[in-house]
């Protein structure tokens, strides 16, 4: 009975997960390794890879900083309306990526007063890399914060209070006590945030304006190549993106697993 259900589970996950992954590799290499590798010689593909890396870097920097700050603020102080703040931080989790992209576009596009003002000062947000960064920050906003809030909530504030009692300043306490304590949660959140940022499609496709070589990220370029029937190119970039995202996610699970087994008695 147990054996039969294990085999059934292998079959189900095989069809649902392994076969699609195998087909990505197959489609990429169907004309051989040469045409697949030629994808990376294309300047547009290279530009997309560079842009995606820069957007992900900006996103994890912003959301990492916010996540640590939110973790500190929401677990180290008492104030009214904390539940509302927590809900607002979580909100991007259930918002459709397209709605997120639309929000950034309507807020910072040149039709809005804010966007027009920024453009008058030489800052272009909509249909520019900055807009892509803002949309990606929105979509991945909760990930680091949720991890740090959960960890710092559990660890309590005794250590910080002890440090302050011994004469340390707030900033020093934060840097020397809280930050090292939250390191695991921060890393965990950053890995998740990075995986999502690299692959974000819906929000970015609304705000990007799709200028090749300038505002096309890797997921958007995959769509372009697919629509042009360049399946080898599309699936080669897909394989690259999927490999990186899966590696990040598995690293995260492994870290989480290690943490759980070392912390539990």
């Amino acid at each position: 009975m147990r054996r039969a259900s294990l085999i059934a589970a292998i079959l189900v996950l095989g069809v649902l997960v392994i076969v699609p992954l195998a087909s990505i590799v197959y489609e990429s290499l169907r004309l051989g390794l040469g045409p697949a590798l030629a994808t990376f010689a294309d300047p547009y593909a290279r530009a997309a890879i560079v842009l995606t890396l820069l957007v992900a870097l900006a996103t994890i920097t912003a959301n990492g900083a916010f996540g640590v700050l939110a973790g500190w603020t929401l677990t180290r102080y008492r104030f009214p309306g904390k539940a509302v703040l927590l809900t607002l931080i979580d909100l991007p989790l259930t918002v459709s990526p397209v709605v997120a992209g639309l929000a950034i576009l309507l807020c910072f596009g040149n039709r809005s007063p804010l966007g027009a003002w920024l453009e008058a000062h030489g800052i272009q947000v909509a249909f520019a890399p900055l807009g892509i960064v803002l949309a990606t920050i929105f979509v991945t906003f909760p990930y680091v914060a949720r991890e740090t809030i959960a960890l710092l909530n559990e660890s309590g504030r005794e250590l910080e209070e002890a440090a302050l009692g011994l004469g340390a300043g707030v900033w020093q306490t934060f840097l020397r006590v809280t930050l090292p304590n939250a390191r695991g949660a921060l890393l965990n959140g950053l890995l998740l945030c990075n995986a999502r940022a690299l692959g974000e499609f819906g929000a970015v496709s609304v705000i990007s304006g799709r200028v090749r070589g300038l505002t096309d990220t890797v997921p958007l370029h995959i769509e372009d190549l697919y629509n042009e029937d360049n399946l080898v190119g599309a699936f080669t970039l897909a394989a690259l993106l999927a490999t990186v995202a899966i590696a990040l996610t598995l690293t995260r699970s492994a870290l989480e697993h290690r943490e759980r087994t070392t912390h539990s008695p």
Partner: protein
Amino acid sequence: MIPGRGIALAITMLAIAILVIVPLSAIVITMAGITPDRLLAIAFSPRALAAYRLSLGTALAASVFDVVVGVWLAAVIVGERSLAGRLLNACVDVPFAVPTAVTGITLVTLYGPHGWIGSLLARTGITVVYTPVGIALALAFVGLPFVVRTVQPIIATLPHEFGEAASSLGATRASILWRVTLPLLAPAMLTGFALAFARTLGEYGSVIFIAGNVPFKTEIVPLVIVTRLEEYDYVGAAAVATVSLVASFLLLLAINALQRRLIRVRVAE
């Protein structure tokens, strides 16, 4: 008392305002000056209504599928500590990790008429791509990890005593499952369902490739928003987005309430 509350709270709130609240309110502000009657007519036009119905229906079907398959998979994985079990466990993360556009082009190729699975299905006369079934398939793929990861820790801590007591009192396996195990799992199943439903309701990248995108037939809500935008109909896009946003917000509140209950149940144990 830790000093610095004022400044920490101010910066946190400022960040949330600039990065989340101000952009979202721009959607509402876009609709300013349009009469409520007109707005309702735009938000609930026949084409939008067809999209709401399709998105709700396919997300619901996919989430129900995910709950049934996900609970079973979680039970198998929890009970299996071998290498095979660990590999299965890692597989569950894949749909969550893979970028949505990659999922989209992969599924449409795989289930298309020339794909590995699509060509097999074609022989039995089943068409998946460019139909609501294809949409539900993509959504079920995307939603599955949410159910497994919510239910798994609860199954791992299920007290065996109840089952043993029931069995010593003469209960059959089926009645233990229905009368003991599933009621204990119900809160986790509901939470997993809500998480999968919330995620799949607004899903875009994994769906648009396999959906066909024919108005009134295979056009999901996020695509209606994108189409309105491409026509420079900002009010139309904002109106449909507002409906979607209200649904996301209500789902978030429901999920928060469910998760609080789930934590209470675990603490009570």
